[in-house]
């Protein structure tokens, strides 16, 4: 097997995709974001609750997609839970660099998420890794009132 492929599909990633953490729905939803990649058929429904102090108090997701999108979502929820907004935003920015910028030295705070830097070698899969994160970005930007936002590809491609 090609090592680049094995780098991408490491056991940690396969494990998260098969047994995604924080999979399910929150009670007392504050913000829900529905995101999708229409060209893949991948979708995510991300629910986030921010605390009074602005922290990401809890977040859970449902949906379906490839191993990369599911593992990225699962690992994201583990990392973001309990983080202050600013720190969560910094993680989002850092993770975006991890999957798109070659030679980027990923900060240690991203932990296992750094394993997803392997998608750089598979440009078609970047949007899979980013699906949950784009949904989270919408949640960060959502108004404080409860509601449903949408995050998705700006244009679909067809094949």
């Amino acid at each position, binding site marked *: 097997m*090609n090592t680049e*492929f094995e780098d991408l*599909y490491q056991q940690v990633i396969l494990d998260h995709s098969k047994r995604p953490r924080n999979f399910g729905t929150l009670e007392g939803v504050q913000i829900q974001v529905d995101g999708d990649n229409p060209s*893949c*058929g*991948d979708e995510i429904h991300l629910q986030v609750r921010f605390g009074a102090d602005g922290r990401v108090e809890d977040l859970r997701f449902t949906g379906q997609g490839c191993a*990369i999108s599911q593992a990225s979502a699962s690992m994201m929820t583990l990392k973001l839970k309990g983080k202050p907004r600013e720190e969560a935003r910094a993680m989002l920015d850092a993770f975006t660099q991890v999957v798109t910028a070659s030679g980027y030295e990923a900060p240690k705070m991203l932990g296992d998420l750094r394993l997803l830097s392997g998608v750089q070698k598979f440009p078609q899969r970047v949007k899979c890794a980013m699906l949950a994160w784009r949904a989270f970005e919408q949640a960060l930007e959502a108004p404080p009132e409860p509601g449903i936002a949408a995050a998705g590809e700006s244009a679909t491609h067809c094949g």
Partner: protein
Amino acid sequence: MEAFRADFPILHQEANGHPLVYFDNAATTQKPKAVLNALLHYYEHDNANVHRGLHLLSNRATEAFERARAKVASYIGAASPEEIIFTRGTTEAINLVAQAWGGAFLKPGDVILLTEMEHHSNLVPWQQAAAKTGATLKFIPLTGSGTLDMEALDGLLTPEVKLLAFTHISNFLGTVNPAQELCTRARAVGAVTLVDAAQSAGHLELDVRALGCDFLAFSGHKMCAPTGIGVLYGRAEILDKTPPWQGGGEMILSVRYESCTYKPAPARFEAGTPNIAGAVGLGAAIDYINGIGRPRIQAHDEALALRAFEGITELPGYRVLGPQSPRGGLVSFVHDSIHPHDLTSFCDQKGLALRGGHHCNQPLMKKLGFPSTSRASFYLYNTPGEVDRMLGILREADRFFA
């Protein structure tokens, strides 16, 4: 058939460290040397603009272009080359009909009848035509096995149906539709018919007069020709009534500042300098395919599809969609726990080129409950050994991901 592989230079390379297995022929086929040489020869010897030059090269280019048109006419059994319009491909051909014919003849209350298995290119142009003209879209449903529900057709084929447009072979399910029966029944209620032959033109014999269709569209690049050249066949009687589509040079008889008169078909529908080299390449592709014989290609492709269908069905975790037979030269399949994108990426790492995605059939995918599938599609240069290699790779993928 294996001997023909030598005609396709691109096949003889490695992909990700393995011999390339190219199973994405429903998307586009590879090109034989005969076609590549025809393009080179045209540009090295004959290149000029067509239909207007009073010089040697222009005459030769015009002859080559019109010879290609005549070859296409004979390839699909058209009554004359004047029924052959060159387009960019199937998509443009269908848009031409939807906009020029549909714009002139569809009105509120009319029904455009399609099937539930249409490629987006035979759906979206009709959505646009319906929005513009006030016509309504209806769809022939599918049976559980992925064939058209012909019993539902009686209720759907009412006098309001002005057009029936359907795919000859589904690029997603592989289903072969009963084109002749559909055209006959549509004509009985006075409906015009359009056959999307993108997946059949390079694989089996086509005779538009035997089919009884009014329009038929296909792409050169799915049958050994270059990209950017395609065909719209239109029955002469209907083309004569259809107003022009795009305006410009080549399609006019005389132009004044305020108005103009148009040429008859096919020139009326070919504004601007056409893809001359593409047409020459398509002519060469037709010669190449005729040299092998379509019945032979059809038997070969269907045998590979059957081998793949049976082989994949036996693998643990996998399932093939669509009917076993009759089936065009392709199989769409899913694994019960591996996402098609992961599976298709895995195959790519083994040198196997498949398609993963929605195959431009989003409504049907949604209806069947699949986000996407993997698809293997075959052509004359593929071999049973390659199908067996795919089966081995799919088994490995099951072990890797499961």
